[in-house]
């Protein structure tokens, strides 16, 4: 396949999607390649937290300012992806008073809205919060669904003519002196070769940005910092709860739809694939988060996942927690490359701003004079106005699908919703498998972790003739194995019981591990 375009975007995370939308809105023709599915890297492995900036006020004021601004913007333009929970910073008895003082003054300097909370009121609002809190502050943190956000950005871009290719991996780049003349890629599912001729190339490959850069001969200095997060099967808090202390392990608890997400930590890794969360990491995160929300100690955790933050290195010896969480746009002209831009660092909260800065540079190079309007126009599915509040969102989740046709009982995903997603995937030429459906719904995200609904989904795909021969059963085994990576570290208590039931069914009753 031969593709000609003005701009090639590499990476289907939230930043790449934001860039694609921004380009399309400025009338620039663009194509996005992603080697896997949406949010396969850090965009799909974070807290789902729309930062108020409070987290960064003391150590990283520039990031704090960016967060504070983008927090307001996204609540407006991405209201359908944001649940406006509000957030708290809580100081426990063992936390230092000096940090509280620094926090308040730094918040004032950075424009992050902070309001002292009445502790008695707080106990009523957050019954699971540690009762021995010595001080608490309200901040405008919110919960944000990164999958919906990426999807909405891609959809906005598609509507303006942009094209998205998933499972299409960039393999090499042909240089013609100071320019990338051609980008070669391969479609993983079909093996088809893809040649892209683009005026400009933007790499938003997350932690893979250095590898993509290397294909073009650009030198990027990136460190890989793994952060692990844990999910419970129920929602224990109403607001985002942050520990009021210098950033450390396990000090954020985020309510996300029907679950609670806790994390994270920061561990240097050398490789990006096969990320695992060890039992000792899990134990430390549970212990730390339980200090703020004691019910987490006995909560039912259903999954662990890990993402890699690409940290832009100024100095290799800097401790990871101190490296700025701000982002960097690399203008490779100084490396002698006129048509490559890389972007790295940052966070979910600042994805739109990152996209804006990258597209500003690309526009200048292309001589396009259109201003960025992504901060003004809402995303598809996000009407004007405020983000949905908790009760509105939960109401939406609790509506049972019509006709009682539930495919995923843990998360109430109906057959009709699956049908709509499948239709959308087909329209976009996307491979159809349970994982692709999971990323676009909540299928397989609940207590059974896909054990029951994955099976039903395969049955549905067979019924509809969307898979044939043994492909569907292979997909099912593949789906179960992919989910397993996040299930394995969490197997104790109820979750171990659940796993033993699934293993008994799949291996005992159905012999899926060794069919004759």
């Amino acid at each position, binding site marked *: 396949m031969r593709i000609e375009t003005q701009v090639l975007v590499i990476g289907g995370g939230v930043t790449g999607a934001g860039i694609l939308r921004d380009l399309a809105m400025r009338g620039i023709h663009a194509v996005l390649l992603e080697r896997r599915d949406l949010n396969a890297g850090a965009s799909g492995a974070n807290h789902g937290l729309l930062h108020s900036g409070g987290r960064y006020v003391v150590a990283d004021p520039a990031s704090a300012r960016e967060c504070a601004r983008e927090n307001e913007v996204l609540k407006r333009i991405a209201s359908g992806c944001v649940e406006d929970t509000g957030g708290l910073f809580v100081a426990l008895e063992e936390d230092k008073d000096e940090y509280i003082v620094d926090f308040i003054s730094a918040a004032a300097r950075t424009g992050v809205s902070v309001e002292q909370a009445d502790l008695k009121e707080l106990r009523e609002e957050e019954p699971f919060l540690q009762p021995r809190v010595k001080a608490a502050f309200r901040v405008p943190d919110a919960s944000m669904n990164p999958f919906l956000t990426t999807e909405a950005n891609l959809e906005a871009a598609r509507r303006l003519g942009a094209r998205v290719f998933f499972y299409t991996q960039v393999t090499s780049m042909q240089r013609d002196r100071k320019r990338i003349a051609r980008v070669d890629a391969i479609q993983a599912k079909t093996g088809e070769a893809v040649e892209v001729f683009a005026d400009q190339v933007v790499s938003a490959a997350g932690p893979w940005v250095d590898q993509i850069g290397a294909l073009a001969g650009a030198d990027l200095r990136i460190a890989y910092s793994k952060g692990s997060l844990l999910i419970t099967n129920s929602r224990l808090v109403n607001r985002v709860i942050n520990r009021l202390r210098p950033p450390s392990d396990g000090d954020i608890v985020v309510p996300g739809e029907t679950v609670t997400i806790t994390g994270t930590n920061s561990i240097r890794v050398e490789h990006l694939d096969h990320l695992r969360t060890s039992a000792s990491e899990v134990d430390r995160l549970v212990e730390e988060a339980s200090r703020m929300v004691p019910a987490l100690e006995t909560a039912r955790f259903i999954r662990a996942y890990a993402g890699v933050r690409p940290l832009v290195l100024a100095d290799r010896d800097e401790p990871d927690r101190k490296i700025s969480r701000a982002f960097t746009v690399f203008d490779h002209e100084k490396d002698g490359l006129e048509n490559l831009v890389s972007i790295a660092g940052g966070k979910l909260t600042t994805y739109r701003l990152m996209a804006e800065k990258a597209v500003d540079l690309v526009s200048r190079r292309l001589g396009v004079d259109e201003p960025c309007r992504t901060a003004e126009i809402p995303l598809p599915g996000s009407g004007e106005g405020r983000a949905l509040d908790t009760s509105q969102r939960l109401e939406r989740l609790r509506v049972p699908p019509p006709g009682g046709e539930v495919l995923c009982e843990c998360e109430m995903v109906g057959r009709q919703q699956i049908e709509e997603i499948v239709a959308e995937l087909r329209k976009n030429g996307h491979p159809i498998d349970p994982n692709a459906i999971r990323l676009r719904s909540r299928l397989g995200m609940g207590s059974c972790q896909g054990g029951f609904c994955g099976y039903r989904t395969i049955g549905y795909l067979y019924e509809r003739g969307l898979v044939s021969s043994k492909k569907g059963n292979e997909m099912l085994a593949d789906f179960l194995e992919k989910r397993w990576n996040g299930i394995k*570290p969490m197997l104790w208590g109820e979750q171990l019981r659940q796993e033993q039931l699934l293993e008994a069914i799949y291996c005992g009753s159905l012999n899926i591990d060794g069919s004759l």
Partner: protein
Amino acid sequence: MKTDCDLLIVGGGLTGLVAAWRAQREGLKTVVVAQGPGSLPFTSGALDLLAVYPTEAKRYRESPWEALSELIETEPEHPYGRVGLRGARAAVEDFLLYLEAGPLAYYRRGEENMAIVTGAGTIKPTYAVSVSMKKNRLAWSRRRPALILGFEGLYEFSPEQVVCNLQDRWGGLKAARLDRSVLLDGDRRLTVTQLAFEFERPEFRDRFAGAVKPLLGQSRFLGLPAVLGFDRVAAVCRDLEERLGVGVFEIPLLTPSLPGMRLAALLKRDLVEAGVDFRQGAPVSRLDEKGGHVSAAYRTGKSREERILAEYVLVATGRFFGGGLEADRQGVREMLLDLQVEAPGDRDNWHMASFLGAPGHPINRVGVKVDSMLRPVGPGGVPVYDNVFVAGAVLAGHDWVREKSGAGISVVTGYAAVDSVLAARARAGGGV
């Protein structure tokens, strides 16, 4: 309230039911305390004995007895190793004679394992199946033209999945679905139990046969998900065969699984009829124990505490799913008597990196260690109680899901534990 008994069985899964049935027949006054419905309703109801050995190689064995001899030789700490070949054979033979003569008319293929088609379109080896799955084996082994029929709205079963997975090895196999409006009114979602109720009604079977007949074509067999009624499944199958003129068989599904429920219901009914005192609901809350001897168990009901005085106690509480074992982040515990259980190192080592890979997860071999009398042992292999025995999945040293040995371990150790009780009683001078 106080009860006296010879044998208290804690656990109402297959192991507890089998042991109770045998103990009562041997003249022991038996009480069963079952916390819940047991794990049988979650199983295929097929009796797996041993079909994969060694599990490292995922080697399928046509002859379970040959595999069993090898296993007993190489793994003396496996539950089968503890009981031995002679005890295993006697138990399986006796129990199957009972099931074969009963209303579920279990069927085996001589001394060999058989292969049956599952709802996932996979082929599962097993040793014996109820009458409703007899022709499942027959149709598959002879690859006769067959129609696999599903129901709109029954998401637990996709006939297309079965056909797609098997058609390269089974010509003349085709899939169809019955539109549920032909059969019933109401919600579009159909459940297994709803269909089972319907199939017990002749009027429904009449309508069903009328709708299916035109779909059969050249098919000699009709394969249906396991929904053909509850305890009257044999009559339902026969009736459908007469109406349709083809062989009818059931295909096992994932939960809820009727063949497993039928087996549980049959056993419960028969053992209660035989005089076993079966108590489901409240679990054993505490025990009286002193000097390595358990003398009584207590259940706490809504308003009062029940005391069960027992001469012997059989622990048949199952594994993690049954509640016999529990794990927290630090380790694994046996829940009834805090019997010694060793977890396989720290939690990173409990499971393999692959969910479905060989040889199986190390945590699955964790359980209660016993001596050759199935008495729980402490350090040094010395029994820790003089009147407590252990049977079934809670035992250490096996991986029934990978070996395909689940029902076999229940039956063989259930029998052996009762044998041990009888032997201990004879030694103690208590006549039967």
